């Protein structure tokens, strides 16, 4: 009983903090249909702001609190709604997820850059003292004694704050005009507009309040969790679980869920000393709970109202694919015979990331679903390969299949649900893998956190030298890239893109998308698993540190920035992600002072993703356009240079035509063979005046 009381009170405290965070999350989601993955990251940055104001600048605590909660946070919320998330609720859920993941990573980068960990400031210790510390009982112990255990001022304030927030939100939503508008815009902003409401104002208010609540959570928790970029940010995963209990709609249920999670988690800590199983599973209790709640969520309705085609990357013809693949292999062959071992490892890493990104091209680029756990699937592949200890093709195939099976297991329970729930299920899965499975001495990478791995041999040939092994990895990358393109050209590819462009239309045409989704998810996880197995062999050592949850996020974002709808984008993105740590270590000279790039790279990626998310074709699309432009110009030159060879029936044009695209109004001029009997000079009259 003593243990129960002793852990109940801290449980109520964390539950109250989760409740405040979760209610902010629910408020913004219900009003704007944007699930803010970055909710915790905003709380983290705002608690840093609070620390900066009070400890670094020496401002009065109450004044700082007022500034952060009622000025800075609402202002940021307003700016976010107006500049970034406006209209995002109508976009496909994949887009709004990528945008908020972009904010998540960008904010972590911002905090790392602006408040770097290694900056020594003796007058500003990186610590926020808990509120009301001065209050003490007779023995000088801070806090009150309640039933033999003490309750601190901070705990009391937090629990009281959560009650104030609950009552305040209830009154706002049920007793005010704008609150009614907020509730109505949940279901149908169009209808609200027709009835004279202003969904945009409701959305702005929701974001302002949501941001204040994120700030309040951050400030209440910072003295317990510490000023930690990731710790504070990821605590919000627990708030996601609470929000899911309320099915992202009901605030009372959200509160109940948050309190339940807080208390349960705390009690698990209290009792886990007696139970080895409980102490292993404990860090994953909330993610497991999140997963369970998602599985129990009701069938979601399909959204309608989409117009634009999301995918515009061209689909190369088979010969062109072959040429590009052969050229890549040739360059790789030249590279591996000349480069140093460091460079080889870099190339191998880039190929690994590229393969993982190819899995995202299939899943996100074509299918429109977002996975926040792609590196965890790679981890499953690496783990299987290492544990099997069969360094040959069958080991590799097993690693792929196990990862695919795990992917299907993640997707199966949520197959009735829409993209948001699927993405959150992957997030819960990633946290479970990182905190429990990969760390486990039996299931995971062992007590040292890493295991040794042998390199692959195929048909008796052992790829022992790093050069040969890296070449093999590039060959796998090329093969998978081509495989993805072959899928894109066929029935399955068309259906995937149709599902991405309009799930509602696919449904009304009679497509049961659920099994399609599971198959897609499994294939994508399998490809990621293969990449994991390959990279384990490259380093000859693989461990939990290679597959931490957070790293899946910059991977997803870079894939979007470089173009998640094309194989080229994935390959470029792989190189980009490999260079990330190299660039982060760089210092550049800005206006005479050295600036370390560090977190700035995360900021750049985050902002890039926020900007790029609405057009997932990314940077590589500009490359394609430039290529088409060059082709047009070169073609004109070549044709102009051959005026004497009169080609009466467009043979030459046919030779140059590759049927690279499957439609695309701007390309027809280039790709259509010259009409019969028309002299070529006329067809390309723009760049080359017809001669002869």
């Amino acid at each position: 009983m003593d243990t129960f009381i002793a852990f109940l009170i801290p449980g109520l405290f964390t539950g109250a903090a989760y409740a405040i965070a979760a209610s902010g999350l629910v408020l913004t989601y219900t009003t704007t249909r944007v699930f803010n993955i970055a909710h915790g990251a905003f709380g983290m940055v705002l608690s840093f702001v609070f620390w900066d104001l009070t400890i670094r600048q020496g401002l009065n605590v109450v004044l700082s609190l007022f500034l952060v909660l009622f000025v800075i946070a609402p202002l940021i919320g307003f700016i976010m709604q107006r500049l970034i998330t406006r209209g995002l609720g109508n976009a496909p859920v994949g887009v709004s997820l990528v945008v908020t993941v972009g904010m998540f990573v960008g904010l972590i980068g911002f905090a790392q850059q602006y408040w770097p960990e290694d900056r020594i400031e003796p007058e500003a210790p990186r610590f926020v003292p808990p509120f009301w510390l001065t209050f003490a009982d007779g023995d000088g112990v801070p806090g009150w004694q309640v039933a033999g255990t003490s309750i601190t001022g901070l705990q009391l304030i937090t629990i009281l704050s959560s009650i104030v927030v609950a009552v305040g939100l209830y009154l706002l939503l049920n007793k005010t005009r704008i609150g009614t508008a907020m509730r109505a815009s949940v279901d149908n902003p169009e209808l609200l507009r027709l009835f004279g409401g202003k969904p945009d104002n409701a959305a702005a208010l929701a974001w302002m309040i949501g941001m204040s609540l994120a700030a309040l959570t951050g400030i209440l928790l910072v003295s317990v969790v510490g000023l930690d970029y990731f710790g504070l940010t990821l605590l919000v995963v627990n708030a996601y679980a609470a929000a899911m209990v309320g099915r992202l709609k009901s605030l009372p249920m959200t509160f109940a869920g948050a309190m339940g999670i807080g208390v349960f988690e705390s009690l698990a800590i209290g009792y886990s000393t007696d139970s080895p199983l409980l102490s292993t599973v404990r860090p994953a209790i909330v993610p497991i709970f999140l997963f369970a709640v998602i599985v129990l969520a009701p069938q979601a309705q399909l959204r309608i109202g989409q117009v634009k085609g999301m995918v515009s990357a061209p689909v190369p013809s088979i010969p062109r694919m072959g040429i590009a693949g052969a050229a890549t292999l040739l360059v790789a062959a030249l590279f591996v015979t000349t480069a140093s071992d460091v460079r080889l490892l870099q190339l191998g890493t880039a190929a690994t990331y590229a393969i993982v990104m190819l899995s995202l091209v299939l899943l996100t680029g074509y299918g429109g679903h977002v996975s926040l756990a792609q590196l965890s699937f790679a981890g499953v592949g690496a783990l299987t390969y290492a544990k099997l200890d069969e360094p040959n093709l069958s080991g590799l195939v097993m690693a792929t299949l196990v990862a695919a099976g795990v992917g299907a297991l993640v997707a199966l329970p949520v197959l009735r649900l829409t993209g948001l729930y699927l993405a959150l299920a992957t997030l819960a899965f990633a946290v479970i893998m990182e905190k429990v499975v990969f760390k486990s001495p039996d299931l995971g990478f062992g007590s040292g956190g890493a295991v040794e791995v042998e390199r692959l041999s195929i048909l008796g040939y052992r790829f022992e030298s790093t050069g040969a092994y890296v070449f093999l990895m590039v060959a796998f990358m090329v093969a998978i890239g081509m495989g993805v393109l072959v899928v894109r050209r066929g029935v399955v590819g068309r259906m995937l893109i149709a599902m991405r462009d309009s799930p509602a239309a696919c449904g009304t045409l009679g497509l049961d998308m659920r099994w399609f989704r599971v198959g897609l998810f499994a294939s994508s996880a399998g490809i990621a698993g293969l990449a994991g197995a390959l990279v384990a062999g490259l380093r000859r050592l693989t461990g939990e540190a290679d597959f931490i949850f957070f790293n899946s996020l910059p991977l997803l974002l870079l894939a979007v920035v470089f173009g998640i709808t094309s194989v080229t984008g994935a390959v470029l993105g792989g190189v980009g992600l490999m260079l990330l740590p190299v660039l982060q270590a760089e210092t550049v000279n800005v206006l005479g002072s050295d600036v370390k790039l560090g977190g700035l790279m995360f900021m750049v990626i985050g902002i890039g993703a926020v900007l790029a998310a609405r057009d997932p074709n990314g940077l590589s699309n500009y490359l394609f356009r430039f290529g088409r432009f060059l082709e047009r110009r070169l073609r004109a030159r070549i044709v102009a240079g051959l005026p004497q060879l009169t080609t009466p029936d467009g043979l030459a044009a046919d030779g140059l035509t590759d049927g690279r695209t499957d439609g695309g109004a701007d390309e027809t001029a280039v790709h259509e063979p010259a009409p019969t009997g028309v002299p070529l000079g006329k067809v390309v009259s723009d760049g080359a005046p017809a001669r002869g």
Partner: protein
Amino acid sequence: MPLLEVDDVVVQFGGVTAVNHASFEAEAGRITGLIGPNGAGKTTCFNVISGLQRPTKGAVRFNGRTVTRTPVHRRSRQGMGRTFQRLEAFGSLSVRDNVRVALDIHRGFRGIIKPSASDIDGLLERVGIRSYADDRADAIPTGTARLLELARCLAGAPKLLLLDEPSSGLDETETDDFGDLLEDLAAEGMGILMVEHDMDLVMNVCDTIRVLDFGEVIAVGDPSMIRSDPKVQKAYLGYSDVDVDKEPVA
């Protein structure tokens, strides 16, 4: 027995009632018009019928079966096809591939084996957009995209067609051709339920008309009866800002 029965359906969004105890039916081989001012609940009714929106109360029966809780794709396989007021074309695919996907879905595995090129072009020909076959669906005019959605529906050989403002974006000649096409389809036995703002088209082709206002059915009858119904006149003319011939703001 009517092909489609909407029985006392209520849909509420938060505090707003979008559809208020609406009951109506649509018959095979006949064209039924569903008209009413903006916000009257017409599209919401369509969403309830096709399964994209679960009603707060009431039931939908199709072909003798209650389908109120049947998933969208299964209603489609039972013979329900629909188009959308806000376009739902597959924008990344060409017009031809849009129809190809619909045929592939309809045929399941048979579609993978048997190439369907001639069927696709036949469908595009039928709705009159053959010349757009190679264009990307997000690059064609609105009216053409609506016809494309119709062609996609027809690929599934539906028993009931739900058309949500099919003629907006079409010019006068195209609208006339479209009206003829609808009459042909009805003559083949297809039931058609159509939400439409073009009163000339509605009055010309519909066999029966239902008028919705504030989520309620306020009038039922053939075109001439509807034209002279005082309640209908009030619903339309009572709002000075609603122009029945104008295309609504999507």
